């Protein structure tokens, strides 16, 4: 369903030196409702890989396909691709403090206003934040903020969820709640790609890939 073929990417470090990040990297996530965890040390390119999958980074060599069709590198085309198919959960929640939880979730919605509000409320209920609609992000805990960010990514009902360290700042109980939520989404047919440092999170995914030596290597599934 979503594939990367022969990806090559070089970045320029702040000191001016070039560094090859990916070389002939390939990736495929085919089965509906499947999930994959991408592990790797800091600086190995996990977030960049996720940005390429989201179409936020189009400066690479190789081919990015969705349902077999190669995606254009044009910004507008990739933005449409994200709007239509991708839900992206950022590492730092990225909530706007000057508006309510509901308004933050509505930023990800499309369509008629009343229907959007209803769906946003549904997803807030799904992430366990019923009654939080009017609250400001500044009064939320880290786990609550993360769940608002998840609700925002889900409200457009994407086929693929890309999550960058979604539980990095959460305690174990909250992490468990988020992982349970992800399992619920998978049961609904969503595909998940989760970038994480946590082996515990990785174990909840159907497959684990290690980003090392500029390419992805499958890890044996522990469960």
């Amino acid at each position: 369903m979503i594939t990367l073929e022969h990806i090559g990417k070089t970045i320029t470090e702040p000191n001016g030196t070039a560094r090859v990040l990916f070389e002939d990297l390939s990736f495929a996530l085919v089965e509906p409702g499947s999930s994959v965890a991408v592990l790797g040390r800091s600086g190995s390119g996990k977030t960049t890989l996720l940005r390429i999958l989201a179409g936020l980074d189009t400066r690479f060599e190789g081919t990015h396909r969705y349902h077999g069709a190669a995606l254009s590198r044009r910004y507008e085309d990739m933005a449409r691709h994200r709007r239509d198919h991708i839900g992206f959960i950022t590492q730092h929640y990225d909530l706007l403090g000057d508006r309510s939880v509901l308004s933050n979730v509505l930023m990800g919605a499309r369509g008629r206003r009343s229907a959007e509000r209803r769906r946003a409320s549904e997803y807030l209920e799904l992430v366990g934040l019923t009654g939080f609609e009017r609250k400001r992000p500044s009064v939320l805990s880290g786990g609550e903020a993360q769940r608002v960010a998840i609700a925002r990514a889900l409200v457009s009902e994407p086929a693929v969820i890309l999550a960058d360290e979604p539980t990095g700042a959460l305690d174990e109980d909250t992490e468990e709640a988020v992982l349970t939520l992800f399992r619920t989404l998978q049961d609904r047919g969503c595909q998940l790609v989760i970038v994480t440092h946590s082996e515990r999170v990785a174990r909840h995914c159907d497959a684990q890939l290690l980003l090392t030596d500029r390419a992805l290597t499958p890890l044996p599934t522990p469960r």
Partner: protein
Amino acid sequence: MREILYDIRRNGALILLRILIVALALVSTVTTVSFTESTTGTLDSQFSARAENNLAQLIDTYYDDPDAFLAIRNNPEAMAQVSGFYDALTRSTALTPLSMFDQAVPVQEFRGDDRFDHTFGTDLDVVGRYADAVTGTTLMNVKSMQMSRQAFEFYGLTASAGEAISWAEVDYASGMVPVLLGSDYQGVYAVGDTLRGDLYGNVLDLTVSGFLPPESAVYYRGEINTFLRDRIVMPYPETLVQPGEDTAAVELTPKYQSFLGILTFAMINTDLAFPLETTTDELLAELTRIGQQTGFTQHALIGVPLYLTQFALVRQIVVDNLALVSAVQVLMLIAALVAAVFISYHVHRRRLPRVRILEVLGAPTRALIRERQCASAAEYTLTLALFGLGVSLSPALGIRAALIGIGALIVWFLLDIGVQRWFLLRALDLGPRSATDTPQRGSA
């Protein structure tokens, strides 16, 4: 609309600051342009001719001999020589007589207030209206300035309302004289009104041809700018002797003869403008030639040494300050532009988190740009309103300057939209594509 309200709530103070900076910068610019145009116009219309000439003063030599003065005024042949002398002066190519005199004019049933009284603004007590002892009519001695056509044109005087003086219609013999009124007379008299006045005992019907602009001024008796805004400007006759006319044969009533005598001497006691390159000797030679030709030699020349010095000084101060004001204005405009761009960048930075989220959510660039354009349109509409208010309160604003200001605001608006678009596209990393780039925020 909702997002604009969010934006105003978040960035309202900065946006308001930018509106104030842009509006004030443009109001200031428009005022300066207006001032510059007005000053340049004045320099061109009045100061140029004045700057290219020097002045001397011509007087008759009867001032210390009243008996001789009375005798010549009662002698038609001698007066014909004096008149001929004046007319010869006006025909001379070496000099220009600038006849002027500020004889007050008693006006019957005068409509104006005391500020037009000839004593108003002087050390004398204001006389105001009084009853004529003979006729019983109410009179007021109002400020006036009688002047020749040469003086009128030399000082670049024009009519801002109504029509300029028709010199051919000036007829002291019939008592019909067209006049221009100073700008303070607007609302007191109208074009076409007639004032019944009296000059040297000769009753005249003074018909209002028009009004002078407020800044109209002449050099008179050592005063660089003698303003005419509260005066009646009465034209002297263009000539005192008609070509070929034997004035000695014209029958004159004693009263009119007396009037004509005073008028003629008032006219020959005149400033003479002459080119800077003309020496005093050459000027004297020309006066001697005219005197010998006409038979009137009872005149003398007095220099007006201060005129050129004062005038050149004033002119230079105006020119220097004009350049200074323009330079300060340009610097202010640049400072305002820099401040506005700085604020634009700051506001952009404050909007960036939302842009990043929308980017991740797949918002189309067009929508983001359009959203900013709408916010800018609202902001600049408010700026235009503030600019309009500012210029409406600005004194002596020129229409051209106001149009320039509106044009500048439109250009500023388009530039700002361009700059904000550039900031936005740069933030979205919409540069040329290659497989190499610098690491993204928190990436790699």
